């Protein structure tokens, strides 16, 4: 996926929403900027399929050697898929954060939070201010 097509949370997660069998499904990951800032990821803790997630709430964690960073869900719904191979190949997050580095897929139960997400240009502006 091209980042231009994605929506971003201020907390550096991205989401790509598509229609699947009449339901809205969001693929969720973390941005290239976030991966770079976190440096040397060593571990990732992911939720299981079936877990309910809520926009703005924690759904997992990534760890570097001496820091733990929560992953916040950009959307509200139920997890229908988890990229279980990711914790064993964390370098994927560096190499391909927007495709192979996806983390979870969420069947949306509420779309209102999507309005709060940023487009790529707005997100890049935010990163420039942070960086």
């Amino acid at each position, binding site marked *: 996926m091209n980042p231009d097509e994605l929506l971003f949370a201020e907390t550096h997660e991205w989401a790509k929403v598509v229609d699947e069998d009449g339901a809205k499904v969001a693929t969720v990951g973390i941005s290239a900027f976030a991966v770079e800032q976190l440096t*040397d990821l*060593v*571990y990732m803790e992911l939720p299981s399929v079936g877990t309910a997630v809520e926009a703005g709430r924690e759904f997992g964690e990534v*760890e*570097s*050697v*001496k820091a733990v960073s929560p992953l916040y869900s950009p959307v509200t719904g139920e997890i229908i898929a988890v990229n279980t191979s990711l914790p064993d190949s*964390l370098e994927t997050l560096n190499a391909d954060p927007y495709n192979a580095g996806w983390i979870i897929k969420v069947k949306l139960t509420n779309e209102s939070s999507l309005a709060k997400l940023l487009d790529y240009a707005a997100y890049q502006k935010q990163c420039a201010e942070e960086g």
Partner: protein
Amino acid sequence: MRNTRATQPIFELSKPGRRATRFPRPDVPARPIEDLLPEHCRAAAPPPLPELTEPDVVRHFTNLSTLNMSVDTHFYPLGSCTMKHNPKRNERLANLPGIADLHPYQPDETVQGLLQLLYELQDMFAEISGLPAVSLQPAAGAHGELTALMVAAAYFDDLGEKRTKVLVPDSAHGTNPASARMAGFDAVTIKSDPRGLVDLDDLRSKLDEQVGVFMITNPSTLGIFDDQVAEIADRVHKEGGLIYLDGANMNAILGIARPGDFGADMMHYNPHKTFSGPHGGGGPGAGPICVTDKLGPYLPSPVVCQRDGRFALDYERAKSIGRVRAFFGNVGVLVRAYCYIRTHGPDGLRRASENAVLNANYLLSRVKHFLPVPHGERCMHEFVATASELKKTKGISAMDIAKRLLDFGYHAPTVYFPLTVSESMMIEPTESESKETLDAFAEALFRITDEAADLLHEAPHTTPISRPNEVQAARNPVLKWTSC
């Protein structure tokens, strides 16, 4: 001189049939093990431990010891850890058979000398803290924090009050919020103000009748005495809350100020810091706590009491929170603390703190010209310098300086703590170091800040190993030796 043949993992030195310790054959009639233990619990073979001779064991561990820096061998200004001299007399005395070889369930009448010592120690801890009720049971500082918070929770329960929050300054040691959590409270962070002290406005906004305890480290982790402490205590007390003092930094104020006199209701000591119990490569410590009279009934059982001239363990304490540790506590550490206090007496303890503060201020005065100390011209027993300027101008981080100091034969200060100062280096020289040592250390620091960044990034250069790959260690954990 290190012998690298002896420092490979001990399992690689093993050879079947070798042995250091042999036991005699049973002097009682031996029966077949099958008759004594049922099959379901019998081992087919003993555990696959390594097989070594005594010379192997001695040479291996002796050579490993030479790979450590220690207080006995090096200046060790590790802030917040009070790495002072560990008196040899204390080691010898704590190892006397009349102390080391006592069983914890011996009848009280067979341990009168030890109980007397512990009773006197309770009194001395109470006097030094200004808090009269003492429990020697907690096994470490963090354990003391947890115990005291449980005492507070029991006290509030008894009053019928539901208090759910513990306030913790952002500069506090990480054990504070972790302990609060384990005692069933929610930890709420209080910001520091620009001086590094508790931000009173932030405190005001977060202080309500839900607050059970305010945990304060004073002198703070920045090495500053927070002179607002009485006012803070006043406000917290007015809301019905309690003040907990993290006693990690008691080395600055022995005989000069007492937590009980500046508003604390509870505190712990770190005897392995303040009272010179050695740090043992990571432990043991002890975490005795002192509390006000009104909280005394809730302390863990037993405590040592005196009845009719005899000493006894008192278990008859209806309001006690119960036990936090099996047996009495870390007696070996407590005996060393007793020896330390008796060696010093009232004047000596005060002098120890005065010299700890003098040494820290002297070092600060030497260092501040090239490594800024953001919080104040003066300090108590330690100070926090920052390398953030150097990082910006030369790309030299606090970690680089720490690593390079190792090449100069000094243990590094505590780096990256407290979290409130960027590129922080927390330096605590203690009283048991000379002006010559402090001068030489300051000189080394100065030279390092003048060195080329590339040299520093690769430091240390002269230690047994260079910087380890921590990412690899965490990504692919290898937590035990395996044969391949």
